[in-house]
């Protein structure tokens, strides 16, 4: 199967990014004012999720991590069911047993979400192995961060995928932060791609805040995987605008660095570009934001209305 060769509608990508941003801001608000469980957001990394997922086909699988909202929403997940999950409700994607941290949506191809940093990398080779068997189609796109790249599993995963030529798109969202520690303190290199190269895997490192650059690179990566059969490593350089977990006062963050990255916000950048090229005006922008806001309010109403699970659910689904 070939990748979608047509340019993605940029407005559509913008709207998806706005939806992700609005969803996560709603989570932050619900935590702060309504006591909903805290969460790990991906604010500032929306272009990574939208650009890569846009390049995937329905047969492809996605493995993600504790910052999964962008990947799920980019894939078309229902924000109502996601919010219900975060709130521990019955209609959540995982019947309320995951919470925000490990939401999977198998029907959308978002599988085996693991919140153990690096866990997704160990599972990705298995998904890739399944997809490499005769009669199977698709690639496994595995999202992780620079923190996971410091785990041993990153290296084991890339090595095995390269040796077995597994169809895996490794997507490293290098967001500069590993929980409460800056990447500079934990790595002797600037780019994770330098490590990946050592395993003989084709690599590319691009601006993760430019959704069009991400989309183009992901398309190229998918095409390479489908043509050559082996893995591909895509590094997206981006920034985690909020703390590791909500709440987090970010007292450990260099204000100048944060300010510099906020000035390169992926949504703002795309809006500016679209305006410069006369694809976006005030009316269009207002309409788009209104739609997103309406979607989020409807999602919240759905989640609020969903009942909590029955007590009998406590021991259901332990075994198949």
């Amino acid at each position, binding site marked *: 199967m070939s990748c979608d060769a047509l340019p993605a509608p940029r407005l559509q990508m913008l709207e998806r990014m706005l939806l992700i941003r609005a969803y996560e801001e709603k989570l932050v608000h619900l935590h702060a004012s309504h006591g909903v469980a805290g969460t790990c957001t991906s604010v500032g990394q929306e272009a990574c999720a939208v650009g890569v997922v846009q390049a995937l086909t329905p047969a492809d699988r996605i493995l993600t991590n504790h910052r999964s909202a962008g990947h799920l929403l980019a894939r078309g997940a229902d924000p109502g069911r996601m919010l219900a999950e975060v709130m521990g409700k019955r209609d959540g994607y995982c019947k309320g047993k995951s919470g925000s941290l490990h939401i999977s949506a198998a029907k959308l191809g978002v599988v085996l979400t693991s919140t153990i940093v690096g866990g997704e990398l160990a599972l990705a080779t298995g998904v890739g192995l399944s997809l490499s068997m005769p009669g199977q189609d698709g690639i496994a796109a595995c999202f992780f961060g620079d923190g996971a790249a410091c785990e041993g*599993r990153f290296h084991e995963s890339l090595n095995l995928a390269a040796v077995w030529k597994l169809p895996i798109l490794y997507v490293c969202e290098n967001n500069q932060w590993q929980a409460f520690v800056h990447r500079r303190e934990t790595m002797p290199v600037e780019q994770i791609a330098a490590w990946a190269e050592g395993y003989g895997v084709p690599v590319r490192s691009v601006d993760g805040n430019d959704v069009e650059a991400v989309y183009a690179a992901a398309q190229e990566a998918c095409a390479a995987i489908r043509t050559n059969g082996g893995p591909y490593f895509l590094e997206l350089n981006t920034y985690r605008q909020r703390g590791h977990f909500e709440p987090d006062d970010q007292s450990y963050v260099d204000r100048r660095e944060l300010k510099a990255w906020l000035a390169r916000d992926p949504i703002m950048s795309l809006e500016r570009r679209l305006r410069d090229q006369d694809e976006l005006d005030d009316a269009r922008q207002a309409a788009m934001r209104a739609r997103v806001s309406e979607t989020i309010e409807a999602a919240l109403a759905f989640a609020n209305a969903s009942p909590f699970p029955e007590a009998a659910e406590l021991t259901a689904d332990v075994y198949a």
Partner: protein
Amino acid sequence: MKMTVNEAISQALAEEMRRDARVLMFGEGVATKRGDLLAEFGAARVRNTPLAEGIIAGTAAGAAATGLRPVVDLLFAPFLCYAMDEIVNSAGKLRYISGGQFAFPLVAIAMTGSGWAVGAQHNHNLEAWFVHSPGLKVAMPSNAADFKGLLKAAIRDDNPVLFFVDMALTPIEGEVPEGEHIVPLGQAAVARAGSDLTIISYAKTVGHCLQAAEQLAVAGIDAEVIDLRTLKPLDEDAILRSVRRTGRVLIVHEASRTCGVGAEIAALVGERAFDALAAPVMRLTGPDAPTPSSRVLEQAFVPQPAGIAQAARQLMQAARRRAQPEAQFI
């Protein structure tokens, strides 16, 4: 048909791979050591891997959740420490966490137990760790027929199964039924019927218990020996049935004492069959120590037939109300 435990394992693997194209096997040296499987099923289904237990187990979990039925050989049980995240956090939990969206039909084989003088980093009976972890099943057979039957059942099960091979048993021959032979997970076996006391064990020490029972028979004590075969799910009914008949329980395992499988059985008997007990439940286990290499010390670690018989005689004399000194390893 007579065959060794090793041959029984090979036969189970070949039969299941023949039966189901989704079954595949990988691990360190799997393709090197199992040339017969490689020849019959090809390199896509019989694979060597890097010496990296974490990614082997993770690959098995990911593959199991997406349509394959992997069997992985992780060599020695202590190496499972490198694979704990994948087995415990992924294979054991992601079904539940996802609200039942995934299943993990995989088998992880690991060797353990005394007999090869390999020392504590290759010999560690850590099966209780996995019994304690939700979402997993644990099998630990004692004879060739059960190795074959339980491995086949484990491969067909839709859940992750830890399959422990007591390495001293691998060359031991036993009778294996002809034709399709399956031993369901979760069913204990009465290895020897008896009426005076119940000796409960699994893996290599089942043989030791049977030898002890012969010694006891000479002294006029009729011991029943229960082979658990599967540690999770535990066949509680089989244990309670026997205990209710004999009223005396001796639990024997090679694994260390504290929080071992024996502790769970003692608690079960105390909770559900206290009224039937004529004497306190007794355990005879390996000590709370790493395993030594020296053959003499290695054998001292394991409950032996003479020590089991001695503990049984002690148990026969014990009365319920009398304080009973705890039996340590012999």
